[in-house]
């Protein structure tokens, strides 16, 4: 039987079922253990970065090559003749998808990947569309959580920092809700979790709490997911006063459970003290490495009927 993701577009986390997410995570784990260079043999993947994003692009291109595939593409769409000649994205996608077996795409406008999927003759994988979705980031986060906890079910996840604008937090919450996780949201009031997302959690009967400090949840959390609070959003004194509450250091981690792991989508600025890197709780560099395996898994699944 064909795997359920064969020839599918990967646009948005809410499109994926719990089973599909589990399949991706387990495939990533398998590929991390045993690389298989035949999975994309003789396949050409188009890597279309209409907006620069060096790390996402490099990790996709690494994934393609590790599975034996080759790629074509560009890394700065604004500088290509596509942009200069004013061709619609729809037409560009029609043409590029006739050259390649799959299309990885990053674009500055929201909805670009969904639109591309309507005009592409091959699977489209969303590498980020404006402030909307970045599903491969969420899948690598899921894989990292699975890897360090041995399960995705029923965990207590604490999100810290800017929960209002952090799209990685939004999609990860949607994904983990499928696995019955519970959540603690720790943020300045002005950067709280958007209501439409907590409404969704209410509808699904998922339990969550808003908290003031990391200390309040550290003795119960399985995962602390840190994000950066952007200075630009506050005036200077307000920022200094507030930011201290959302910084993780050795002291904050007193009383943590043994299995606690700290994640961060990187780059970090100063929200995790460097001294934390040496503790067994730090997992953000493994998490960054896992991006390659999660992307390998996706490409392998959409392009191979049986895997």
């Amino acid at each position, binding site marked *: 039987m064909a795997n359920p993701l064969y020839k599918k577009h990967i646009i948005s986390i809410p499109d994926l079922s719990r089973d599909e997410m589990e399949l991706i995570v387990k495939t990533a784990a398998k590929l991390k253990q045993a690389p298989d260079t035949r999975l994309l043999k003789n396949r050409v993947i188009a890597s279309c970065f209409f907006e620069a994003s060096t790390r996402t692009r490099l990790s996709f291109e690494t994934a393609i090559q590790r599975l034996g595939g080759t790629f074509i593409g560009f890394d700065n769409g604004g500088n290509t003749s596509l942009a200069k000649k004013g061709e619609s994205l*729809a037409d560009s996608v029609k043409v590029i998808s006739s050259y390649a077996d799959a299309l990885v795409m990053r674009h500055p406008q929201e*909805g*670009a990947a969904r639109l591309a999927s309507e005009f592409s003759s091959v699977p489209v994988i969303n590498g980020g569309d404006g*402030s909307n*979705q970045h599903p491969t980031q969420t899948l690598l986060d899921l894989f990292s959580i699975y890897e360090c906890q041995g399960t995705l079910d029923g965990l207590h996840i604490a999100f810290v920092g800017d929960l209002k604008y952090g799209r990685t937090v939004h999609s990860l919450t949607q994904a983990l809700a499928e696995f019955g996780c519970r959540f603690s949201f720790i943020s300045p009031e002005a950067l709280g979790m958007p209501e439409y997302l907590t409404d969704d959690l209410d509808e699904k009967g998922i339990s969550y709490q808003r908290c003031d400090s990391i200390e309040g949840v550290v003795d119960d959390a399985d995962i602390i997911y840190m994000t950066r609070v952007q200075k630009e959003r506050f005036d200077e004194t307000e920022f200094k006063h507030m930011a201290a509450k959302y910084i993780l250091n050795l002291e904050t981690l007193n009383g943590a459970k043994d299995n606690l792991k700290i994640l961060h989508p990187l780059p970090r600025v100063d929200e995790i003290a460097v001294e934390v890197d040496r503790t067994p709780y730090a997992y953000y560099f493994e998490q960054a490495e896992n991006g390659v395996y999660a992307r390998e898994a996706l490409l392998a699944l959409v392009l191979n009927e049986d895997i």
Partner: protein
Amino acid sequence: MANKLQVEAIKTGTVIDHIPAGQGIKILKQLQLVELKEKITVGFNLPSKDLELKDLIKVENRLFTESEASQLSLFAPSATINVIENYVVKDKFAMSIPDVVEAAFDCPNSNCISHSEPVNSHFTVKQKTNDVQLKCKYCEKSFSKDIVADL
């Protein structure tokens, strides 16, 4: 029959009746009825049996489609649309909130790809307690119906 509205019969056209008072003006704007240059008769704050007050719009020589009816239902779910041909009611749409609204309004998100590409706008409709929310298929943002239609 003192309160009975004296509506002049029309030969061909559409009568939108039982519009909640205050919504009639929005409907005129939303469907760009005034630009039609057809004869339009409007009644605001008319007495009504079911509603306290109602608005009513008659447009001559303009037949409504089912899709226009579903746009209307977002603003006036209690309204009825009577399509009249040769002085008889040829079609009667009862209003119901649609699951999907296509090509009716632009997405309010200015960075949404749907503005610059050869596609129709497309929203899925979700009823909330005090609001109807429209979610854009492309940018996946949700908006209150009043923001989407900019009324």
